[in-house]
């Protein structure tokens, strides 16, 4: 009885912990796309098999350990040594492994396949953020991947420096970004929503703060979003913003960042053409509000030690203008 009891306890704990943890969590078995769906099905199949195997085998271990102690000589066994080994060690595992092999082939056959009329997106992993380019729409953004629901996506993956890995647990598995190699991840998202992703290959001191968001929206909403970025506003919207733009251009900012339609064409840091519209800053590290933006500009090192953005010293009045300008870039 002990083994099943222990397992039931563990299983109950698992269900409980999972239940109270999944809310707001990038939980891989809360699938929002076909690939994650397939893998979730494989998982529950495996979990069922695993639970049965664990309970049965642990039961054998406990019975084996205690049965000999009940009497002085131990009860004679009806099962031979070789019977145990051939049935338990070879035959049964073989059948289970065949089931898993079938599940593997079945699942892999149905995911990551080329489809007609894909939306092409090129993602470049850099230390420690993501450049996101829409080549057919001719614009680039960062740390936010917007996709239309239901449309096949062809996501090109490259690395600018070291190896990174692109992972959105609710949408699918990982694909690495490897210098000198162009990988492609083909996937779809079924449900509108914002899904957190994170770099899954250790890439240096700020590997922990290299997250991003996948924003899945209706095709119409996506088109609006993309069109806006294809045709960014031509200039600052007001006096303060205009001052802010001047501050941006003469400060170190422009050396590393691009704002399309201006003289700023740096490529070391993220493209800021639509920075005001993004939900988060610093590769999904802190929320994109005025306070965090100011903190980030003045001393990104406190938020993200080792990030390539140096502390910027800036007059308070200039900072105010700069903030207004950046937040107006939508």
């Amino acid at each position, binding site marked *: 009885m002990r083994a099943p009891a222990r397992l039931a306890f563990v299983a109950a704990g*698992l269900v409980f*912990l*999972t239940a109270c*943890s999944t*809310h707001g969590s*990038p*939980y891989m078995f809360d699938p929002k796309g076909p690939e994650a769906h397939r*893998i979730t099905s*494989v998982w529950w199949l*495996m979990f069922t098999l*695993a639970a049965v195997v*664990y309970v049965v*085998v*642990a039961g054998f*271990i406990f*019975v*084996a*350990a205690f*049965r*000999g102690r009940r009497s002085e000589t131990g009860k004679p066994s009806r099962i031979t*040594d*070789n*019977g*145990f*080994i051939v049935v*338990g*060690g*070879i035959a049964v*595992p073989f059948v289970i*492994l065949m089931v*898993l*092999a079938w*599940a*593997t082939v079945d*699942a*892999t056959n149905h*995911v*990551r396949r080329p489809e007609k009329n894909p939306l092409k997106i090129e993602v470049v992993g850099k*230390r420690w953020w993501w450049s996101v380019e829409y080549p057919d729409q001719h614009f680039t953004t960062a740390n936010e991947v917007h996709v239309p629901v239901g449309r096949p996506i062809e996501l090109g993956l490259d690395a600018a*420096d*070291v*190896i990174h890995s692109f*992972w959105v647990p*609710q949408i699918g*598995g*990982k694909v*690495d970004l*490897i210098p*000198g190699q162009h990988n492609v991840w083909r996937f779809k998202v079924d449900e509108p929503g914002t899904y957190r992703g*994170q770099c*899954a*290959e*250790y890439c*240096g*001191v*700020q*590997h*922990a703060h290299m997250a991003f968001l996948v924003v899945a929206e209706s095709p119409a909403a996506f088109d609006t979003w993309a069109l806006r970025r294809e045709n960014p506003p031509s200039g600052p919207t007001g006096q303060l913003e205009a001052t802010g733009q001047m501050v941006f251009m003469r400060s170190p900012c422009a050396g590393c960042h691009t704002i399309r339609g201006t003289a700023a064409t740096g490529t070391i840091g993220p493209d800021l053409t639509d920075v005001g519209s993004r939900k988060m800053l610093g590769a999904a590290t802190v929320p994109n509000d005025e306070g965090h933006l100011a903190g980030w500009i003045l001393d990104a090192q406190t938020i993200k*030690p*080792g990030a390539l953005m140096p502390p910027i010293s800036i007059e308070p009045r200039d900072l105010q203008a700069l903030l207004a300008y950046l937040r107006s870039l939508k």
Partner: protein
Amino acid sequence: MAIADIAPLGVDEHELEEIWSDAPGIPGFFSTVDHKRIGMRYIYTAFFFFFVSGLMALVMRSQLSAPDNHVVSPYTFNQMFTMHGTTMIFLFNTPVLAGFANYLLPIELGTRDMAFPRLNAFSYWIFVLSGIFLYASFVVGKMPDGGWFGYTPYTSKVYNPGINLDFWGLGIVFVGISTTVGAVNFIVTSFKLRAPGMTINRIPIFVWAVLSMAFMILFAVPAVTLATALLELDRLFGTAFFVPHLGGSTLLYQHLFWFWGHPEVYILFVPATGMVSMIITVFSRRPLAGYIWVATALIAIAFISFGVWVHHMFATGMPIQAMSFFSAVSLIIAIPSGVQFFAWIATMWRGKVEFTTPMLFAMGFLLIFLLGGITGVMVAVLPFDWQVTDSYFVVAHFHYVLNGAVVFPIFGAIYFWYPKMVGRKLSERWGHISFWMMFIGFNVAFFPMHILGFLGMPRRVYTYPSGLGWDHLNLISAIGAVIFAVGTGITLVNWVHGRWWGPKAEDNPWDADSLEWSTTSPPPEYNFAAIPVVASRHPLWEQHPLPHAEALVDEEGPKSLSAEGALHHQNTETTGLDARPERALELPHPTYLPFVLALGLAVFFVGLLVKATIVGAFGVGMALVGLTWWAWRTDVDLS
């Protein structure tokens, strides 16, 4: 064949001791070639690294016990997980098993020392010097931070310009020498130095496991040596093996690394299963079920382990057809483990189990490895691995295997063989307490990590934001880690206490079956005055009394089998399959040469590290002198 019973041998033990013992004090320390002293030293040194590395794990768990925590900086955290993994694999798990193998092989096989005692000493010196080399990075405050796997280009000079990574890259090349020569020694010893009558189907299962390990080492370690050596060539001399824009390939590094890296898992796991087989046999009070099956499984694992490495690279974008093969092989390797598992169950089923501390650790191993093995099958499933690779699920999985299924047997082995090695017994009571704390702490620490992986937590992050459902599970894990650590600490105290105050151990305190229990506890320097003659897989259970080869000498065997051989400092070579005595071998006397050679190599590696040609050249010179002298001295030593 006429066989004499164990009887007074007519040899003066003091005389034997004079012939065999090392010089006292420091000279003896540096010149010993006794496999038992070397084996113990291996174990002590490895455990030193185990506890250091375990403390780093505690720091990491406390950093992760709460979101946005500031116990250590990201730099320190990254250095710690690098050193934790590197230490556990290269400086604890591999060498501690080599230590047990070193100590046990000759006494379990019934011989007076390893096949190459000086090589054995050399192997230890390389191990300890490479450990010092790696930890020198700690002393100068420049610990490597490239992860235990050291993926390039992050570990290239461009992205990691400091000396930190060179400590790691050169250290791995350096320690590989130790592992390789050790493996050669194990193989030759197992095949050529068995007691008369110990035919190939009577070899103790632990020795089969060590053989399997040694063959894997021979074929796998060159790959990691190559990977790290090429990496260092890139770093130190500007070559471009792994530099993509100059025509190199970063994936080549991964292939080389994992071609060693996966067999390495089995290099660690297989000897641990050998220990478990020995312990379960003894405490089930019956022969191991399916001996032939288990031995075959051990050899099968050694072969199949070389066909699974790509499952560490399922996310690198290789063609699915290519990956499917490795997915299939990674599933298949579960079969030999299943065979072993059910052999253990069958042994207990038809035996009468005694719950001593070693047996508790073996049972804990069974329950933990069962889960670790199941999750191991899961990660072989290609699409599932896309999700869980490099997530905390994998951290959970390999700790169930490398900590649960390797460290638990090692702790069991300590409790099991300690009386033989030290001549004193450990406290059973504190052993039980230690086991339960380790078992509970282990599961509390590592089980939640499976779920953390499902919740999307990647590996190797120094912190995480709150609100993702990761907070509580990480806190639980930290609590478990502390319980586990206290459990290991209790064993350490038990160990130290037993060394001086433990009750004296009999020759065969567990009523065990294999030859090491026939000699005294601790064994004399020469192990056996006269070599025992084996006629069974379980000589101490089935041969009463255990005969020795005194009489065999007159008929067919060389004199070295008898106590007279011990007086002449000899060993006996036997045939590979049926262990018929062939000829006497002269055993080398204590010598400083292994230490000199190892030190020379260490100086050479330091020269490479600090890029000082003169130092490097001096090291090479020293090593060459040592090597030449060694070759020269062969005759002198052996005559």
